[in-house]
């Protein structure tokens, strides 16, 4: 298996050529409209508040860093966080579609990590499903009056985990188990991706809270523009 390109292909996204091409095409078609919506959203937000440009670049940079860090997990294998939740919490899910896709494109072209044919599917899991999960959970947590810190933590942790649940689902749909069907196959892929990801999701949650704490301290005006304020009655974690 490792001899296809002559060396182990270390990475956590769906590997180049590993989705049958109708599947690869389908995920690309599903992902494309989100990419356009993301570009529009960035354009609109920058037009409304030109001062948030720097912060926007920083959340993209954060995703760049975190997805380069392959971390050991209790399962004895490695995976990496995605870093897209920070931007989704601050700017909503759409801008991160663009940021996440850029990270995936960079890794597919220069690192043989993920792939061009699987870019649509990987973008759907990391750049669409992950940020959407982060945003929904953050909104729910804030609505239930959780303090900012725990809200950010939950959003980042579940967004990270959800990304790899979606990856497992995509692989299970493409490769249903001959005996047990989709469910058996899903269990196998979840066992690899999702279980490995649990401690890394916690790490991403913690790091995202650290960054939000720093931004609250030094860039409260930008966060206020985006509607992010520390909880009036509680200190942030």
């Amino acid at each position, binding site marked *: 298996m490792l001899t296809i390109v002559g060396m182990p292909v270390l990475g956590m996204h769906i590997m180049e050529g590993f989705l049958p091409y109708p599947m690869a095409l389908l995920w690309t078609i599903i992902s494309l409209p989100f990419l356009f919506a993301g570009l529009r959203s960035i354009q609109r937000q920058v037009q409304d508040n030109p001062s948030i440009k720097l912060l926007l670049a920083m959340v993209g940079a954060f995703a760049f*860093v975190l997805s380069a860090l392959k971390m*050991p997990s209790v399962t004895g294998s*490695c995976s990496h966080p995605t870093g897209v939740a920070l931007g989704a919490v601050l700017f909503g899910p759409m801008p991160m579609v663009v940021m996440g896709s850029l990270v995936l494109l960079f890794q597919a072209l220069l690192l*043989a990590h993920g792939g061009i044919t699987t870019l649509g599917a990987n973008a759907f899991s990391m750049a669409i499903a992950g940020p959407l999960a982060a945003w929904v959970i953050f909104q729910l947590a804030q609505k239930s009056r959780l303090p900012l810190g725990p809200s950010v933590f939950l959003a980042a942790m579940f967004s990270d985990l959800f990304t790899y649940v979606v990856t497992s689902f995509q692989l299970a749909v493409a490769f249903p188990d001959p005996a047990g069907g989709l469910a058996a196959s899903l269990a196998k892929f979840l066992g690899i991706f999702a279980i490995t990801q649990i401690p890394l999701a916690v790490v991403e949650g913690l790091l995202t809270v650290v960054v939000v704490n720093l931004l609250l301290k030094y860039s409260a005006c930008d966060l206020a523009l985006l509607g992010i304020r520390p909880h009036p009655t509680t200190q942030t*974690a």
Partner: protein
Amino acid sequence: MKNNIILLIAAALILILPLYLHHSKENIEFAGADTQAEAVIQEIRPDYQPWFESLWSPPSGEIESMLFAMQAAAGAGLFCFGLGWMMARSKYAS
């Protein structure tokens, strides 16, 4: 800031724990989760052949790790430039 230090220490401990747990086991190699996924795919569909190969792969593990380090360095550089800019702004603007 004290909270942040506690959070960072907690994150570091979570990453160190697996190394400690598995340090004496020979069959644990901390390979990428996708390498394992490839094995499962081969098990489910032994006849499956990837129909496309990476346009370019780093010629060695060293070059690959350099590119990963560059990715992290570029991201951290931009991020910390922004943070420093914000810190200076909040210090001198008021």
